[in-house]
């Protein structure tokens, strides 16, 4: 019974195995990025970037139909353009990053909707917006795995300046010039992972597999290594449980994955060991010293 519900779908159906592989790769790359987004108070920036990718993907779609590479390339170009322009504007002017990003992403979202409305059916639009993790072909899977690998490698390179810049930016500026490049590279990684996610989850939900696990991790760990590990684990668990839920109930796969993550998030808010609600309402007795 348990076997039928939890394991059999993946043994019987190849598309389920592919979906699981995709969601694991997405978790490995996206969740650490999400932790940094959260710690740098950029969670909504990730959301904004996800919208910014839409017009690029739409242009790719306009030029060559539902072609994976065209849409990915378009999304990457649009995302990088918005990320880098917003980052540069924030660094050289008084405007904060969130404000400048809001401007750029609204403009590109408007552009994207315009482009999509020129050509394309509602089903195409749905595919772009919500993805389809159950329709992974070899190529898509390889692209996702490749991007996840690149993400982890690059994150390892910029890890130290990124951490120091998050905790004490003035210090980093006095010892090194690595701060600005690290920040821009980090934004690029955000874009790579959003584009990566939209194959599976669509432009609107791709950011969910990055941000929600990070939020979950915050309630279970006090140090950044632990947070990243927990975020990756909870992303994988959400992905797996979401796929099972989707298979058994016909809930669309993308939303199912994000809903499971949201459920884990609620549980963490309530029962988390680090300042969870219950822990705060019924605190353990204070210590002697």
């Amino acid at each position: 019974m348990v076997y039928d519900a939890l394991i059999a779908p993946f043994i019987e159906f190849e598309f389920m195995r592919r979906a699981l592989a995709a969601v694991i790769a997405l978790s490995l790359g996206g969740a650490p990025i999400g932790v940094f987004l959260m710690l740098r108070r950029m969670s909504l920036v990730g959301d904004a970037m996800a919208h910014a990718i839409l017009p690029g993907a739409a242009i790719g779609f306009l030029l060559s139909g539902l072609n994976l590479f065209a849409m990915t390339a378009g999304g990457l170009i649009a995302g990088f353009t918005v990320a880098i322009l917003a980052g540069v504007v924030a660094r050289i002017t008084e405007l904060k990053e969130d404000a400048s990003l809001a401007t750029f992403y609204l403009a590109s979202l408007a552009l994207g909707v315009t482009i999509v409305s020129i050509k394309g059916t509602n089903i195409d639009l749905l595919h772009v917006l919500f993805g389809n993790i159950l329709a992974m072909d070899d190529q898509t899977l390889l692209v996702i795995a490749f991007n996840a690998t690149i993400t982890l490698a690059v994150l390892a390179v910029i890890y130290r300046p990124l951490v120091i810049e998050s905790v004490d930016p003035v210090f980093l500026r006095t010892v090194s010039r690595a701060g600005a490049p690290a920040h821009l590279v980090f934004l690029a990684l955000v874009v790579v992972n959003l584009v990566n996610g939209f194959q599976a989850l669509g432009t609107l939900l791709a950011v969910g597999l990055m941000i929600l696990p990070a939020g979950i991790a915050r309630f279970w760990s006090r140090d950044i290594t632990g947070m990243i590990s927990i975020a990756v684990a909870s992303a994988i668990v959400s992905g797996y449980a979401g796929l099972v839920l989707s298979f058994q109930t016909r809930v669309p796969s993308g939303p199912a994955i994000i809903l499971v993550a949201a459920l884990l998030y609620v549980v963490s808010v309530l029962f988390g060991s680090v300042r969870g609600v219950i822990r705060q309402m019924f605190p353990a007795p204070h210590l002697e010293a």
Partner: protein
Amino acid sequence: MGVCLAFDEVKMAAQLQFRDVTLGYDRHPAVHHLSGEVTAGALLAVVGPNGAGKSTLFRGLVGILRPLAGTILTAGLDTRDIAYLPQTADIDRSFPISVFDFVGTGLWRQTGLFGGIGREARGKIEKALSAVGLSGFENRGIGTLSGGQMQRMLFARVLLQDARLIVLDEPFNAIDAKTSADLLALVGQWHAEKRTVLAALHDMELVRAHFPETLLLARGQVAWGSTADVLTTENLLEARRMCEAFDDSAAACAVDDKTSQAA
């Protein structure tokens, strides 16, 4: 006397030279036409009323604020040879990082982007923590520290930076007597090690007792020299008369025009 001065000049190389430096924000000067030298190994207090430009001067010195005019020469110091302790440390205290790791960032000069923290480096970090009286705090998150402990931790990082020039912006503000005495002892130690130390301070008694040289700043230089000569009643009164507010309709500085023509 003259001979003595000449001897000093030969012996003491200038670590810092301010050449007609103007620093500020949006063209408004916060430090106006400052010229002077700091010899290597000096222990210099920078005093002045709020808004006198002490922090601005330090920001210019460590290279996070570009001068509006003039130059600051640091006699071959790399940015890594300068340790800077800002006034309101711009630190995200909610960030999940331990005291040990945070202080360890002071080793940036040795480790850079990728260098590992080996056993020797660990020993150094432990030593720095014990020097500031924070042994046993290694695994605490930085968010759990009190204000005084935070300042001790920042001093530990400065200690690890092993810098030839140390710039401390109001290091003893809101710190109890015990902590400031401990940290002041570290400053004395740095001075003994022939490092150049600049500190912005408000406590005149402390400056008189521990700092041989003083720069009294009130946007421009009011007085600069040995502490006893600088901290006179007249000088302090003159510094206090400085007007703090920017004048939005101020004309371009005439001295600038002259110097640019001369150049």
